[in-house]
């Protein structure tokens, strides 16, 4: 009963966080583009900051113990590189007043992917024998399908752009498509288990960032992009979904009180 209540409460806060972010962006757009740029940039600070704090907490909980400890250290690397990338972007856009794309933040955005992939591999390591070849079929088909759609949109508007921007238009959707595969496998693998809630949130988060990257590259390449535009909501949702996934895992594997250990002895 308590677990069911916890789960409901956790979903209530999740929905509230998703709705509040969407509302803030939509209202700021209604007030004007300058407001949207300011709100869009500043909203990244608490969201990526929260993800970083939760990652530190989960790393502190697991330490370097076992494969899941390694997985969460990798996830911490992801959270850190995401935080650095967003802070660099904000610094360049709001303080230096220069267009941050493509530039240094992209190095850190690209670093996110190997860290996330390391997280997936390490988390799956103890249960690798449950992963069958059949499990790959549907995720690969889904990933290839949405990659084709994404490349159709991003490459279509990237002709005539500098080589780096053209390359990034291909690299981002391809890397998104790669990390969607283990995320979907995770949902199938842990289906019916309590850890599945985290995997479902991670999966939605990655699908969200895939759609956001496609929209970003499309609008960036045709010159209509600005931080805080309504499509930016998907980037925020990615971080929020991941943060709530980590939070759910922290609650599930929370530390026992010392007295209970003594009682066991």
């Amino acid at each position: 009963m308590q677990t069911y209540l916890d789960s409901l409460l956790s979903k209530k806060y999740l929905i509230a966080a998703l709705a509040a972010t969407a509302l803030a962006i939509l209202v700021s757009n209604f007030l004007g583009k300058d407001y949207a740029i300011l709100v869009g940039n500043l909203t990244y600070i608490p969201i990526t900051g929260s993800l970083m704090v939760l990652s530190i907490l989960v790393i502190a909980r697991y330490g370097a113990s076992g494969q899941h400890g390694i997985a969460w250290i990798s996830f911490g690397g992801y959270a850190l590189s995401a935080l650095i990338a967003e802070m660099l972007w904000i610094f360049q856009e709001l303080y230096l007043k220069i267009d941050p794309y493509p530039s240094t933040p992209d190095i850190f955005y690209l670093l996110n992917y190997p860290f996330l992939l390391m997280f997936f591999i390490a988390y799956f390591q103890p249960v690798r024998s449950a992963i069958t070849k059949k499990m790959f079929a549907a995720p690969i088909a889904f990933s290839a399908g949405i990659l084709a759609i994404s490349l159709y949109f991003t490459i279509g508007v990237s002709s005539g752009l500098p080589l780096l921007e053209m390359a990034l238009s291909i690299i981002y959707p391809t890397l998104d498509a790669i990390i969607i595969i283990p995320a979907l496998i995770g949902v199938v693998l842990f289906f019916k288990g309590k850890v599945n809630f985290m995997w479902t949130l991670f999966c939605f988060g990655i699908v969200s960032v895939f759609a956001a990257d496609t929209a970003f590259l499309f609008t960036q390449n045709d010159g209509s992009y600005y931080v805080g535009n309504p499509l930016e909501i998907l980037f925020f949702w990615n971080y929020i979904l991941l943060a709530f996934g980590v939070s759910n895992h922290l609650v599930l594997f929370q530390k026992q009180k010392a007295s209970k250990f003594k009682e066991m002895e």
Partner: protein
Amino acid sequence: MDTTDVQVKKALVAFAIERALLDMGGPVFAKVTKTLKDDYGCYIPDCYDHPEYLKRILSNLYGNAHAAIIDSIKTNLQDFVHQAPIQKFVCALE
């Protein structure tokens, strides 16, 4: 089978379970231990007599992937499966 023999086998099974869970992470071991205590009032060595408790907890926690954790426990016990009580424990986990 005398009492000492049962105790040795319980310790062996407990060691195999602990090793499999600690390979995943300390908090995973702590969570399983706590659930065993809270739901059944027993500890890891008691899984020797009640493997179904462990199976249910792993299934609740990891869903479809619980079979892989059970495989890992079986692998840790593979040198002793020729002994009837250990084989019975392994079969009950499946």
